[in-house]
């Protein structure tokens, strides 16, 4: 049961949140010109790392705002929290 620090509301229990998966997946522009493989990569392919993971969350049963978390998927430690329009912070890969 993660304890998630919503940047707008503070720490709340994970069951108030919805996880939106891997962050910073760029939606291709000019989609008509890109090939099926590149489009499929955007649609379907996600990393599944053990360790540092940049991910999107929304406070679904709270302020309903989306934001970013950097989480160690091994320890569940939350390494950073930042807003939707902020650049991803440089977080070192945690040693396991």
């Amino acid at each position, binding site marked *: *049961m993660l304890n998630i620090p919503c940047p707008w509301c503070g720490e709340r229990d994970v069951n108030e949140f919805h996880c*939106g998966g891997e962050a910073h997946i760029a939606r291709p522009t000019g989609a008509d010109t890109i090939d099926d493989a590149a489009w*499929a990569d955007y*649609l379907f392919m996600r990393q599944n790392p053990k360790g540092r993971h940049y991910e999107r969350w929304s406070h679904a049963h709270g302020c309903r705002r989306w934001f970013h978390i950097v989480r160690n998927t091994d320890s569940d430690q939350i390494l950073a929290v930042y807003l*939707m329009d902020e650049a991803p912070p440089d977080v070192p890969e945690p040693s396991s």
Partner: protein
Amino acid sequence: MKRQRYRLHSGGRIDRGDERSFSFNGRRYFGYAGDTLASALLANGVHFVGRSFKYHRPRGIFGSGAEEPNALVQLGAGARTDPNMRATTTALFEGLRAKSQNCWPALWFDIGGINDRLSGLLPAGFYYKTFMRPASLWKFYEKIIRNAAGLGRAPVDRDPDRYEHQYAHCDVLVVGAGPAGLAAARAAGATGARVIIADEQSEFGGTLLTENGRRVRIGGEAPDEWLNSISAELNDMPEVNMLPRTTAYGNYAHNFVGLMERITDHLPTEDAEGEVRQRLWKLRAKEIVLATGSLERPLVFAGNDRPGVMLAGAARDYVNRYGVSPGSRVVIFTNNDSAYAAALDMAEADIAVESVIDLRSEVEGDLPRRAREAGIPALQGYTVVATSGRHRVKGVSVMRMNDAGDGVTGPVRNLTCDCVAMSGGWNPAVHLFSQARGKLVFEPDRGIFVPGEPVQAIRSAGACNGAFSLSQCIAEGAETGLAAARVAGFEGEHASPTNVSEPADKPQTPVWRAPTDRKGARMFVDFQNDVTTKDLDLAVREGYHSIEHVKRYTTTGMGTDQGKTSNVNALAIVANALGAEIPAVGVTTFRAPYTPITFGAITGRHVGALFDPVRRTPIHEWHVERGAKFEDVGQWKRAWYYPRNGETMRQAVDREVKAARDGVGILDYSTLGKIDIRGPDAAEFLNRIYTNAWTKLGVGRCRYGLMLRDDGMVMDDGVTLRLAVDHFLMTTTTGNAASVLSWLEEWLQTEWPDLQVFCTSVTEQFATISICGPKARVLLTELAPDMTLSGDEFAHMSMQEGMVAGVAARVLRVSFTGEVGFEINVPARYGRAVWDAFMEAGEAHGITPYGTEAMHVLRAEKGFFIAGQESDGTVTPIDLGMEWIVNWTKGDFVGRRSLNRLDTVREDRKQLVGLITTDLETVLEEGAQIVAHVSDAPPMEMIGHVTSSYYSPNLGRSIALAMIRSGRSRMGETLYAPMPAGTIEVTVTKPVFFDEEGGRLNG
């Protein structure tokens, strides 16, 4: 028979003035307040209490707490019966009723015991090896295996008890109220921190409850005096919450801890009436101090599973804490000093100690010295090579260990006894530490796993940290409690250390398997699952090298005790058999719950009407009054149909469907999802979300829209109304309202933050009344005389605001039935009044309320798809034959690129078609598979399935919609629905059955 024959004359924390009667396997016994079921049984000389899981061997009370593998009983009767209750942790109350498990027809005469004679045929993995082939017989084997297995019976009736959940936060959670936990709670509490201290037992004190004080002093006091004073101190601290009878069963991420508090389980039913039985705490602690103590390890020796063989620490608990003699003549078998304390306490209670058998040849601790001084016989450098006795141990055979320590030598000596108290040393109870993903470190000298680096804000103190002596426990507890409070933001100073005098303990020397001269002797490692050293050896020989695999193959460490007494022994034996170091074999993962918890506690108050929230429309009571049948759509209760005068469902639905086409039908559509969308970029936003174009839609006009996921699959549909240049009202299907709102917000916040658009759910702000049919316009005119409703002035897909039945309303001219239709939206609180007005005014026109079933038939006659019924997340608009709604020229929209993927442009995708049966009355089953070629038996190539199927009274025949591979190129083809009762022949048609030209819409 004399009452409580094995009760000692004095001593124990029981109330001898409060006698309690109870029954076990139908026989009446007596015990005292303060007893557990196990101590009361032992007081009556009952050791043999159950049979083992696999061989049905007689088994006795083995431990004195949560570690118990054998003494599992069925408690209570009827709706209040509980299986797998440990007799050792079940408090005795007046009238308690318990029965043995795993025996049939009776404990003393058990047919399954034949497995024991056949044990040579039941090696590790036996079930896997024997019953898997031929596969066709597995169904037969499975029944017999399932009947023979099983631990007790679940109650058949509904649970009459009440349970609740409690959320809590604290600065420091202390788990375990033994010496370390109490010292930690006091140190943390003294800083003013908010502390919760929980212990699974009814009394705080842990091992101090067994320490009678003859050899131990804490701060100059006897242990129970110290216990009383520290408990009083904690009680006086306003921020300290003490929770006895509360098990911390799960330690989850981010210091979230599950606690189960047993509130009335120690009371007779009549005293518990009206009380909450158990409370589940969902606790978030800033800092956690684990003071969970240690669990004693059994010795693995030949014949170690007979009733009467028990853990030495447990035997000592029974003598000191409960005033019970575990036998009249006791053999102690040990590899460490702690069992000598049991020997001394027994001798002092006038219990005959036949001998201490010590595997070590050099013994020099304080306790063995005192035992020698007390004249207790001891054989050092000896081992037990066999035991005798069927339902109770009668004697042991002992031999001298050889010099190498791996075999026996010399003559056999036979000793008579009715109890063997054994100790293989102590394992720190690292379960909760490990559950929270903390890494364990193996100490080879002592043969124990201790906590390493924690992953979360967790500290361990005392025996669970490998600090076994009382002075270490109290010192570590105090230090850890203070450190935790400081990290949680509180200030405090170290108190002066507590002076403890106790016998010096020599470290334990692990002996993993006591040698024997007996060929084929069975040495049990896991008592609950009947796993022996032979099973483990066999698993290793067959190539299992990881402990996780050995565990699953042999079942060691599984079951309700989760291997509390067996895991480390099994691990060491496997490591030895592999010639590997213990850490190299790995340690099995500890998982929640530490001890079993009830489904009642997990469920809490979420039962019956509180199981799931129920949503009702403002018009709901009218439907109830009219005797409507309801169906659940998401959390909504929707009127399904309105049977009149004993009509069947089919008769009622037929009548409703015909009325909507011939006269006027009325539907409560308030559940329709409604989202208010505003902002300067609202039209552009809809352009990107829907497949069609929205920028040019006029104010006051409606448009039907289809939204896709970005993979091109249909997600939802509905009519959206433009209220102003920058203001829209979107409708969604009833079940998707919440997910569509989340979808819109996600795109706005994460992909297009530059768009200025705001979305608000207004589903519950409006009641929506839908009327349709040839007489709908006349009726509405009567109720809204100021509106202009003629076909020319109020075109299909437009909106008017005005008064309807005296209430300000928004009226949409839309249709989901193919008839002239109007949707009247009024503020929710006027919904019932406006509905009543329609019913009253409509009476003259034969107004007929219709439910969701008739609505489905009406839309299916027209071939309108339903998101989630025809489409299932794998269907594109092209598959639905709705390419007309895809605007390729307006620019990008969600899902657009995916409609040109190799997979989505395939010609042989499943496409929406109609199906008609040859027999007019045959209604296909929804979900039925469709084939082109029928064989005598499956498998047949399935080319599609029926998505919607009804009887259409307007057509006088059944109709169906289906998704069929290349369906649109199969018009007129004959296909088949093979059903258990016979194959049904169908013909493929266009997915529209009624008024294909749409003339009625403008009627």
